[in-house]
């Protein structure tokens, strides 16, 4: 009887874990479309390879090595691409495809970044920001480059 109860407990835990991983899967916010040289993704203290096709999540930090570059398409069609020696943090991302509304905050801690904003920036003027260590860029539906030394 006790054994049976324990087994029930295990089954319940596995189901909970499955539904959690389903939720995590749903939190994918973008994808690496181009990659050259050494590209890594820092997530929850782990370093993952930033290969073409890799899915990204909120709070991921994407890093490029020397002579490396990466190109990312976000769910709202924002395009971010970073040159060599860059540290790009996807701090906060929320996008509701049905209404086209959302919020996107990214940081370029180091390196170079080219941005073509997507549907989120077409919403309110505060909906998308890119931070450098000392400045905050408010993006109003646009194409620009930014460097951080």
């Amino acid at each position: 009887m006790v054994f049976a109860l324990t087994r029930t407990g295990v089954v319940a835990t596995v189901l909970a874990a499955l539904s959690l991983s389903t939720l995590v899967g749903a939190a994918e916010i973008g994808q690496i479309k181009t990659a050259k040289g050494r590209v890594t993704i820092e997530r929850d203290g782990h370093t993952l390879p930033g290969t073409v096709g890799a899915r990204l999540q909120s709070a991921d930090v994407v890093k490029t090595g020397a002579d490396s570059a990466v190109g990312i398409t976000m769910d709202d069609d924002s395009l971010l691409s970073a040159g060599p020696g860059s540290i790009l943090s996807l701090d906060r991302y929320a996008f509701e495809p049905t209404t086209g509304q959302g919020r996107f905050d990214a940081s370029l801690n180091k390196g170079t970044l080219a941005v073509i904003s997507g549907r989120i920036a077409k919403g309110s003027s505060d909906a998308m920001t890119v931070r450098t260590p000392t400045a905050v860029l408010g993006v109003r539906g646009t194409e620009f480059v930014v460097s951080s030394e």
Partner: protein
Amino acid sequence: MSEFASVARRAVSWVLSCVLVAACASSGTIVLLPEKDGHPTAVVVKEGDKELILDQPYAAAKITPLRPSAYRASPQEVEAQFGAALAAQPARATAFTLYFIQGSDELTDESKQDVDRILAEIARRPVPDVLVVGHTDAVGNDTSNDALGQQRADSMRAALIGRGLSRPKTSEPFRAASGRRPSQPPTALPSRVTAASRSWCAEGAGRSAERSWAR
């Protein structure tokens, strides 16, 4: 004048030049690029309470410790500093709008031909990512319109897979969603679907529309 005063003056001028160097040292650059379709855009650069608006092509700012400092950049400078980042830019999403025959889930003859263009666009991209968004007109309530939009998107997604769109390597190949356009008057919304692809996609709205994108 005493030697002490002279040393003090030198010290003051040394401190001043340090401050000036610090004020001029840039810790970053922002350049607004020309928009492909020419519509007006802007980036607002804020440092503390200092704000600078870049709203012309090649309007640029240097980030300095005190404030953003405006200047005009050249295409050559952008290429020299940002060439690698710009070369890594993914292809833009391509959007297609397909129309249904009103009151049915069958595409119009014209839109049937678009399906071939969508498949070709998907094939062109190394990591296709397809989003199909079903639309309705804005008559009626959002809940039922969203449900109808979802239904149209699902049927379009199934149709594309039925046309031989291969199962992608990525976890979530084709997503189907409902799209709402609250700002548009009902009369501006035909029956359609849109498809966009980060590798390809199609969109449709209205009584019988659907859309998808490739990106």
